[in-house]
């Protein structure tokens, strides 16, 4: 199903002609470019999420669907921004926070043509809408209709509660561990960390990073607190995830 993507590129000013350049470069370069593209598109999804007042979990679902989609499909074959819009639409349905296509199209249009007037109810609008809906079906098929995702968010919140009981309440209230870990968790969706690690590990890693950033002291027993929370996580796992996160932050400076 190639048709939908062809109608949309006219409105997109941001996506460079990745499809054209892929053949000419090597694999790693292509990969690098893809990563950048994916980063940009995921940034687009995150911004959409905020402007559509979506909760963290549906946004995370959208990103996961996007990453999973492009694990199997090639970036050249499908327009990534269109896929992103459809993933947002689909994620809203999956996580029970339904978003109207009209809103998605409006916000996206404004994202690409900043400061422009809203679209009129004309041919272009209806074509865009058709594209989004058809691409949604495409995404579903590509993912074999496995669209329910388990997220680290629930784990992170429970871990936060348990850890906070170990710490002096005043010290805890002074230290913004909860916000930091939540921010880190949201940000990790820019990359494919979310599909390469289990949700518990991601939750542990973000909490670890947040706690250590502020130097919060926790009691030490036979096990470390993160070991107690999740038995199969290792220090290496944590470190891997943290380094991926740091790479994402670095990429921000390069891509955007």
């Amino acid at each position: 199903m190639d048709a939908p993507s062809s109608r949309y590129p006219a409105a997109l000013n941001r996506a460079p002609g990745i499809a054209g350049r892929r053949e000419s470069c090597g694999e790693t370069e292509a990969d690098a470019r893809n990563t950048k593209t994916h980063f940009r598109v995921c940034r687009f999804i995150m911004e959409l999420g905020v402007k559509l007042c979506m909760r963290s979990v549906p946004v995370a679902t959208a990103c996961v669907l996007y990453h999973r989609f492009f694990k199997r499909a090639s970036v050249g074959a499908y327009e990534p921004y269109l896929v992103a819009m459809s993933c947002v639409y689909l994620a809203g349905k999956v996580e029970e926070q339904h978003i109207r296509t009209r809103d998605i199209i409006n916000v996206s249009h404004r994202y690409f043509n900043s400061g422009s007037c809203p679209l009129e109810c004309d041919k272009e609008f209806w074509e865009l809408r058709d594209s989004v809906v058809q691409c949604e079906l495409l995404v579903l098929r590509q993912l074999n209709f496995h669209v329910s995702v388990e997220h680290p968010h629930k784990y992170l919140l429970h871990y936060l509660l348990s850890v906070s009981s170990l710490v002096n309440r005043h010290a805890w209230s002074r230290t913004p561990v909860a916000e930091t870990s939540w921010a880190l968790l949201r940000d990790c969706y820019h990359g494919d960390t979310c599909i390469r690690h289990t949700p518990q590990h991601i939750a542990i890693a973000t909490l670890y990073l947040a706690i250590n950033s502020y130097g919060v002291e926790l009691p030490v027993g036979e096990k470390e607190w993160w070991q107690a929370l999740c038995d199969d996580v290792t220090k290496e796992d944590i470190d891997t995830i943290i380094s991926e996160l740091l790479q994402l932050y670095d990429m921000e400076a390069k891509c955007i």
Partner: protein
Amino acid sequence: MDRDLLRHCLLYHGPSLFNTLKCEQTENPDFQELLSELDKALHESGFGEPNNPLVEQFIARKADILFSPAWKTAKVKEGDEEPEEEAAEPYAVMPPLELFMEVSQEERRSILYRDLEKGDVVVGRISNIRDYGFFLKVVCMAGGLKRDIEDLELSALCHISEIPSHRSHDDPLSYFQINDLVRAGVKDIDRYEEKITLSLRPASLSHSWKHLKLGVITREELPVQYSRSISAASNTAETYECILGGCHGYHNPCVVDYLLDKLGVSDTQPPSMMRGLQSKLFKEEDFAAAIRKKQSTSWALKCVRAGVDHFKHGRHVEAMNEYNKALEIDTNNVEALVARGALYANKGSIMKAITDFELALENSPDHRNAKKYLCQTLVERGKQLEGQEKLVTAEGLYRRALSLDDSNPEAKEALNKITDTIQKSIRLREEALAKEPVKAKSGETSAEKLRKILKEEKRMKKKRKRSSSSSSTSSTRSSSSPHSQSSRKRSKKKKKKERRSEHASKRQRRISSRESRKGEEGKCEKSRKGREEEEEDDEVEWFPAPPNTSATFLNSGGPVFGMMNEEGVDGKSAKDRICQLYSLSAASEDEDSESSYRENKRRDRKESKTRKCTLGHSPESPRWNKDGVNMGKERKIDDDSKRSGIDEKQKLSQSEQSWKNNFTGSASRPPENRTRPDSSISKTFDGGRYQIKEWEGFQAAGQVTPVKPRPEEQCSASIPGKRPGNAETNNPRPKKELPANLLDIFNQIAQFEKEKGGKAKK
């Protein structure tokens, strides 16, 4: 930058972080300020723990966000409600993490004493009861902290004074037994001595735990986290994760939102460490809702334009469809509403048009076309109402129309026309009203006329004394304008003078009945016309009459004519008052006619104000005038005037009654009305004149038959001694003789006065 946080972090990580920080945060001015301070702190503390370079890198890069004071937004919500059953828990309540971490006893003990605070709740088992209190072996925490402390064998004391006694003579300790599970609040902690003091008083609990019941509890009431920890401790295979997955609350679909709320993290303005996703960078107009609104307006406008086009070509049905479509896309779209309103007005559905315009103006009060069209439509509607004789409503509409668009000539013209019409109609009615009393008046006897004159005289004098011209003008005006009108004004002011003016109430009663007859127009007129004059009128009348009233009165000639005029003028008001009074009395006797009573009351109140006040004042003046120089004369005059007034009223009321009866349809009223004035008189006079009282009493007692002459006769009969003159004056009344000479009348009055003179004084 939050200094304390930063310092703490540096001390934790050591100098390597400090160096990395320095490299990364060279541009950050806040950090540069703190550099020296932090340097010093580091040197003092020594080295930190060996650290993770990745973490340090992260901190270094994101220090400006991490340590920014604005970053900390979360506000933890204390105090969860323990649900009655496990299935109802909103999230998974987990056993203390210490348990899973297998923290050593010493460590646990030390952190407990570090973190335990006053107001926390503990659950313990009673180990020992002494006469000064009991000792608890702490089992677990029930609020404030979640710690694994059972095996610490902590002992806490609850002093007997901290146990609220249920009954005054019972020993509170008798309720407790060894091994009872007790929930208590921490009253005091001695961290150094490691002593905990407990209390069972609810006041000892901190705010979040106030709902917990202190005292003996059952095993079932133990906190969930404790019971889970028991099972976890016994079974090492139960890891944190296992238990978490097994908790019912974990599978709550709303658990994320609930916990976010509990922790105080916002999901609508989510935090992010990405520089491009900081919430302040998002503009309101980029959000979906704002764009949608703009878009709806634009789409609706398109439909409206199409609709206007249809309308211009006469295709009204299509035009209406387009407008409705536009309003579906964007409800309350101003242009669509205005266009639809115009179409409605064109079709003739004026009310729908007005609704639409009003709605449009609500949303945008300065819309020129909306105002213009609404003005025109209101004028149109006003004309319709005029046709239906709803003049006042129409007038209101014209005014509104003019307020919207004051350049509209049609509106102005219509407004002027209608005000004229209303005034005319009121005047007509007044004239009609006036004609009736005039007719009745022709049948008056000399006595009646005399009374009238006297009353008027007194009134005028009072007014003159008070405020020269205004009162006369007001009285004149009031008499010329419909009685109801004047009475209405009076009635409005009457409310202020409730205490003093029983008379006024009567007048109002009378007036209100007239008002009902007159309808809206009268009311409008009254309200619009100078109420102040009425007020002045009333005010004036309540003051004592000038002492030399009698003198001027007795001068024939000039004053007579004046009085004649006034009488003519006031006669109507006098009649009104009489009618009021009579209607009052009627109402008082007739329990069925409550409304009419009230009407009459109001009328009477007003009328009595002008008239009764004079009456009232006349008796009052003797009372107030201690020296009593003019007492006798005044009294005479007062009595006469009173009586004449009453008689006049009675006479007037006869005619009035018939007239009134046509409208009110209550035949029994007239006689009742007649009794009324008496009661009203007495009331106004603050129970002064006993004659009146008696008269009234008698009248009130026996009035049932609608025979008009009777009350007069009764009057005369009941108080023969007091008012022999009445009989005399009363008798001629039914015959309706016309006195040939006013002087005769005066003489008669003088006669009465003489007779009544002594008795009048009280």
